[in-house]
């Protein structure tokens, strides 16, 4: 089993995860990367999507919003706007947001609204994707 290291995932509202993990996989603008113990210190942006955590030899998936990841010698910190376990996701709300923002994106709106809606849509879709995979695994 790979060596565990200290992993922290924090949002402005709560500390989502703080403890030992053996690996973490996130989406970066260039694709997925996995960080294991002893990784080179680095800072990378993180895209909206999912995060995979390996805790005690078991991989778990959670929804992860945009942010960045800082890999240090002693610990790895992911700083993000939101992070949720699939069971905590409000599927109905996410579906509602997805439909609403899709409709808004179809209409011609200002640049700012376009940007806000695009982020909201990406979040909603990532939330739904994470909950769906959970259902297929069962």
């Amino acid at each position, binding site marked *: 089993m790979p060596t565990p290291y200290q992993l922290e995932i*924090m949002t402005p*509202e709560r500390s989502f995860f703080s403890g030992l993990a053996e690996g973490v996989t996130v989406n970066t*603008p260039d694709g997925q990367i996995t960080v294991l113990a002893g990784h080179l210190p680095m800072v990378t942006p993180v895209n909206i999507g999912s995060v995979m955590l390996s805790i005690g030899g078991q991989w778990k998936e959670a929804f992860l919003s945009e942010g*960045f990841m800082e890999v240090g010698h002693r610990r790895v*910190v992911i700083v993000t706007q939101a992070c949720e376990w699939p069971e905590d996701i409000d599927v109905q709300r996410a579906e509602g947001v997805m439909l609403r923002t899709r409709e808004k994106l179809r209409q011609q709106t200002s640049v*700012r609204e376009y940007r*806000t809606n695009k982020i909201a849509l990406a979040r909603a879709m990532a939330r739904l994707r994470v909950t769906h995979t959970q259902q297929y695994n069962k």
Partner: protein
Amino acid sequence: MQKTNEIRRRIGAVEETRKITNAMHLVASARAKKVIPKMEYNRRFLDQVQAVIKDILLSPHLGDHPYLIKHPHARRTYLVVSGDKGMAGSYNSAVFQLAYREIREKLSARGGGNRQNLSLITIGMTGDEFFRGHGIVPDEQLGGVTQDPSLHNARQIALDVLDRFDQKQTDQVFMIYTPYKNGMAGEPICHRILPLRLSDFLDVNETEPPHAIHYPYSEAEVFQYLVPQYLVSYIFGALMHSYASEHTARMLAMQSATRNADEMLNKLRMEYNLARQAAVTQEIAEITSAVFI
């Protein structure tokens, strides 16, 4: 008889007012308690973001970045956070005093600014009223936000601010709010949130030796991601601090109002008893004097 009735009516009125101030005291303390534990998470988040920003600012490869440039004759935007309601002691007026001084100085001849170079965004209804009353009409006013210091609201404000900055409508953005310190509303402060300077981060601990960090994306790209995170977190924190300060200030104001009402009630009850006794004595005197006739 006239006098006792009058006093009785006053006692009733003071009792009603006391009920209201007491209820407001309880509500304010419950609200303040609700938000205070949340502030800790955001503080840790902000510390982390600031540490990474500092790492990048210390790195020699960042070069010039739009979020760093400082213009000599800067157009400024002020975000003023105050309450939607009064009845909070000096909480609102302390914010306005600082904001008004800052803005007046900027608008004066010495500041070299005219009204077009300055935008004012009031967060809180009382701010809108105050500045309109002083002849400075806010460019934008956001009501209801101070009553709900949610991450969603903070994001909206941060996006708005970033938009203004990205479209070169403003060169500097300041936030005036009241930090919450040691269980009390602190002194209001004026903090520049954009552009960033290394000197803002002097008391932040960097995470790793800066030269040892690898950036798969250039520092400028990472920085582009970091600044919105920083803004959202800072504004979220400022909203929560203001909220906690407002409600603590209101709690104290209402506590002393309740105490004053209690004192007043004691005095009025005493007066009422004296007046009632006097009326009784007088009546007895009248009856006894009537017997002798």
